[in-house]
């Protein structure tokens, strides 16, 4: 082959590399290697002057290949390839040699590191002459976006996108959008009424022409790739014609099945089989629960709902609808579920009356809740004392290791609401640390201290009903060490609120697998980078926002929703998206059509072309993982940029030092 002129650039990366690797020695050595025309070292190659070195050498010194020995390609390969491109060299004629994550960062032995750096660099120098120019592949992008989950995160993301003119499918599993926020009473720290600030957004989402609302629907299958997702959505049958239904709720009053625990009220009240989950539901349409309706479960019913319905909207024959939608980007906003305190048996949740969860308290405090907003015990009387226990199931190796961020604030909120409704009631907050980190949060804590709430620094040891003194008769007793005083106290109270943490949804893992991205070890959806890419996933085109990524409060949720919308917009606002060309190519002449690679491809990026009797790569979906290359018995698939001869050259280069 013709003589190539390789430019070698060795980055100090401050002291990250230079502190361990003798960069001068490696530079000297590199200059002596075959085909190397120029070898330079620089403190920070990724900086503008650093990149300029490459561009200048291309323009003025005619280098035809380049290698940057620095950090990991996941950090800066795009940076340097762009620099090469700007300098006039095909970007794929530049390689990176990772002498940081693979070298200087894994040893303190200077000699060993220098030696290894030479080998790593040598591999790239040796293979560069075999690199060929490649062109990125452009695929068209569908301008529509799907938002999965209709809570505050999903609603916000949908509204922001719709405002830019994009069409958004908002898919929500429950009969109405609103999510958990619709259940709250007031929100911290401003004490805004949750419904008052949420319903305008819900209403706007319902009316927005660019948003196609798919409530009571679920995603069942996702195929495709960035810019070109094909999503199957099951629109569950409400057994009500939503075009005719006016949301008048007469069917819900007429229905004879009246004892279904209301999910919205956390089981504290009952709904009918025909129901509207809450009065401000969007869309405001009734739904008939097929597991409880007498007609739908094959029993006899006079069907008073039909008689009550003026517009004749009830349709027991209605079937689920299967939709196939095409979108360019997807935003996951599926939210959280409250950690169920039942396994924390020392608090006797579910066994002792008046030990309630935080969401149950929200409903009790809420004016449209099961008690009409009166904070009462099970016997209907107002509690004279309430204990609020922090960190239930959180920061605990036995349950969830992580902190759920919002519980300290909502616990303080509860204390305030109790004091507001019942000024004479004693409120105890049993906490380990007070995590009031946000804007206005520390001030809120101070406010509560001013409201004469008793703060006891100690995690409650147990809640029991055994009375050891007259004051404890008939009460719940919270046993807790007041660590600041060094005394173990028994608090007789009428009500105990368990501030349990936020857990990932039970089907989070399964959901992530449908969409093709991963979960963190704590079960929440995994972001692409914890600091710099909190709303992207490793799968291009799929974004996450809100508590499905990790517990957070409403301000952060709304901010993330906006960020995800921006990310999605950046993608779908272009007609095309560029896809890396370092992907697999199958020569149809050589392929025998055996189908092995088709089934093995983890990204479903290979399809069988019957006409050609050969497998063929769907270029935009291929991630260049190499599985097909390894699997094919005939060695037909070739990965551009990682051809066999290129890989062998790397190996040789690493061995010859």
């Amino acid at each position, binding site marked *: 082959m013709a003589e190539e002129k390789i430019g070698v650039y060795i980055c100090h990366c401050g002291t990250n590399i230079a502190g361990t690797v003798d960069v001068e020695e490696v530079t000297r050595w590199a200059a002596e290697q075959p085909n190397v025309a120029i070898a330079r070292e620089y403190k920070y190659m990724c900086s503008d002057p650093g990149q300029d070195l490459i561009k200048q050498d291309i323009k003025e010194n005619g280098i035809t290949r380049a290698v940057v020995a620095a950090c990991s390609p996941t950090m800066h390969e795009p940076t340097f390839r762009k620099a090469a491109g700007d300098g006039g060299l095909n970007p794929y004629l530049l390689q990176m040699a990772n002498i940081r994550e693979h070298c200087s960062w894994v040893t303190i032995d200077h000699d060993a590191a220098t030696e290894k750096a030479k080998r790593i660099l040598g591999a790239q120098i040796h293979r560069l002459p075999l690199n060929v120019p490649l062109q990125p592949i452009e695929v068209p992008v569908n301008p529509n976006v799907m938002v999965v989950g209709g809570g505050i995160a999903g609603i916000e993301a949908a509204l922001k996108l719709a405002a830019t003119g994009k069409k958004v499918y908002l898919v929500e599993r429950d009969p109405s959008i609103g999510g958990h926020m619709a259940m709250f009473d007031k929100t911290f720290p401003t004490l805004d009424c949750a419904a008052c600030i949420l319903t305008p957004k819900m209403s706007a989402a319902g009316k927005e022409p660019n948003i196609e609302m798919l409530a009571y629907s679920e995603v069942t299958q996702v195929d495709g790739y960035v810019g070109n997702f094909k999503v199957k959505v099951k629109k569950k049958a409400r057994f009500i014609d939503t075009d005719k239904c006016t949301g008048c709720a007469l069917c819900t009053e007429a229905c004879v099945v009246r004892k279904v625990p209301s999910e919205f009220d956390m089981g504290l009240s009952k709904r009918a089989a025909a129901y509207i989950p809450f009065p401000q539901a969007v869309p405001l349409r009734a739904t008939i629960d097929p597991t409880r309706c007498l007609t739908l479960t094959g029993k006899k019913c006079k069907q008073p709902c039909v008689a009550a319905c003026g517009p004749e909207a009830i349709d027991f024959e209605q079937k689920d609808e299967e939709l196939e939608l095409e979108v360019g980007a997807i935003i996951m906003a599926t939210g959280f579920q409250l950690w169920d305190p039942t396994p924390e*048996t*020392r608090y*006797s949740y579910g*066994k*002792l009356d008046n030990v309630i969860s935080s969401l149950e308290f929200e409903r009790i405090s809420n004016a449209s809740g099961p008690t009409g907003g009166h904070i009462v015990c099970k016997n209907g009387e107002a509690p004279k004392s309430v204990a609020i226990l922090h960190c239930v199931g959180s920061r605990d190796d036995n349950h969830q290791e992580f902190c759920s961020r919002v519980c300290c604030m909502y616990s303080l909120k509860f204390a305030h609401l109790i004091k507001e409704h019942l000024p004479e009631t004693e409120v105890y907050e049993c906490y380990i640390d007070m995590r009031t980190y946000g804007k206005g949060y520390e001030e809120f804590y101070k406010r509560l201290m001013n409201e004469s709430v008793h703060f006891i620094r100690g995690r409650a040891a*147990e809640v*029991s*009903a*055994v*009375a*050891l003194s007259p004051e404890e008769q008939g009460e719940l007793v919270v046993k807790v060490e007041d660590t600041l005083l060094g005394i173990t106290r028994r608090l007789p109270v009428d009500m105990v609120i368990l501030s349990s943490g936020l857990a990932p949804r039970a089907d989070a893992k399964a959901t992530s697998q449908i969409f093709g991205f991963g979960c963190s070890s704590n079960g929440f959806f995994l972001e692409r980078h914890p600091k710099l890419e909190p709303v992207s996933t490793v799968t291009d085109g799929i974004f996450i926002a809100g508590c499905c990524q990790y517990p957070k409060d409403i301000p952060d949720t709304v901010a993330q929703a906006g960020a995800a919308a921006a990310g999605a917009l950046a993608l779908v606002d272009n007609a095309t998206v560029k896809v890396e060309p370092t992907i697999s190519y199958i020569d149809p002449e050589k392929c025998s059509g055996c189908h092995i690679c088709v089934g093995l491809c983890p990204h479903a990026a290979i399809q069988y072309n019957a006409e050609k009797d050969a497998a063929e790569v769907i270029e935009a979906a291929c991630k260049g993982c190499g599985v097909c290359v390894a699997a094919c018995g005939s060695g037909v698939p070739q990965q551009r940029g990682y051809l066999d001869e290129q890989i062998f050259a790397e190996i040789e280069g690493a061995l010859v030092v």
Partner: protein
Amino acid sequence: MKYLYFPGCSAEATGKAYDISTRAMMEKLGVELVELDDWNCCGATSYFSVRELDSFAIAARNLAIAQEMGDDEVCVICNACYTTLAKTNRYMAEDPRIFEAVNGALGAVGRSYDGKVKVRHIVDILVNDIGLEAVTERVSRRLTGLRVAPYYGCQFSRPMGSFDDVQLPTTMDRLFEAMGADVITDFDAKTDCCGGMMMLTREDAALRLCHELLTAARQYKADVLVAACPLCEMNLEGYQPRVNKTYGTDFNIPVMYFTQLAGLALGADPKQLAMEKQVVSCDPVLAAIPA
């Protein structure tokens, strides 16, 4: 069905009734108990306080003997024995140094132990091996109307947690429910400590704990407290008069080994169950159930 049986030291002395009633009860159920040959004291809490590896080693001697007798399960009746033997298994499995040291020590006396003998609490065997159905079939005196407070004690499900919840276990509850009793299922003091050996060394502490337990039993209107550990039974029953003396209370709550009550339900004669050995009389209980 047959089980190797580890009675424990108390079963020869203050806990005699537990041993006697266990044997009687198992006979009614058609289960054979073969006493572990030449078994030694498990060491309980005292040995751990003095010498750690010795504790594991002497406990393991019993398990080694079980293996030599050709069995891989041992039935244990005392909470402390259960915890000590089961803890030995767990720590030997988790820490190779302990495994080696124990086997080295056993080797010095010509024995060895591979850690594979299952230590089973008798309550676990009753409910999970023999099964509630089989037990219920053989109940000839249903305990209808008898309010039973099942007192598990602290070392029943702690720290092992192998077969029941560490805070609020229910195995004994289910046993007595199957026998027709009115079990106080929300007796949430059921695993609070009775004080154990402290009754001799720090009587004030143990008496206070027993006072709390008896107060709870009274609050829930228990007709009888059943225990699964000789120390627990002794403290709550034997020392009940001292609790009364110290606190000016008038507790007169029958406390029995659960095997005594279960044995009664299964048709055994009170004499076979050593009921006359109780300090606090069990006559009210006997009166409440059919003859």
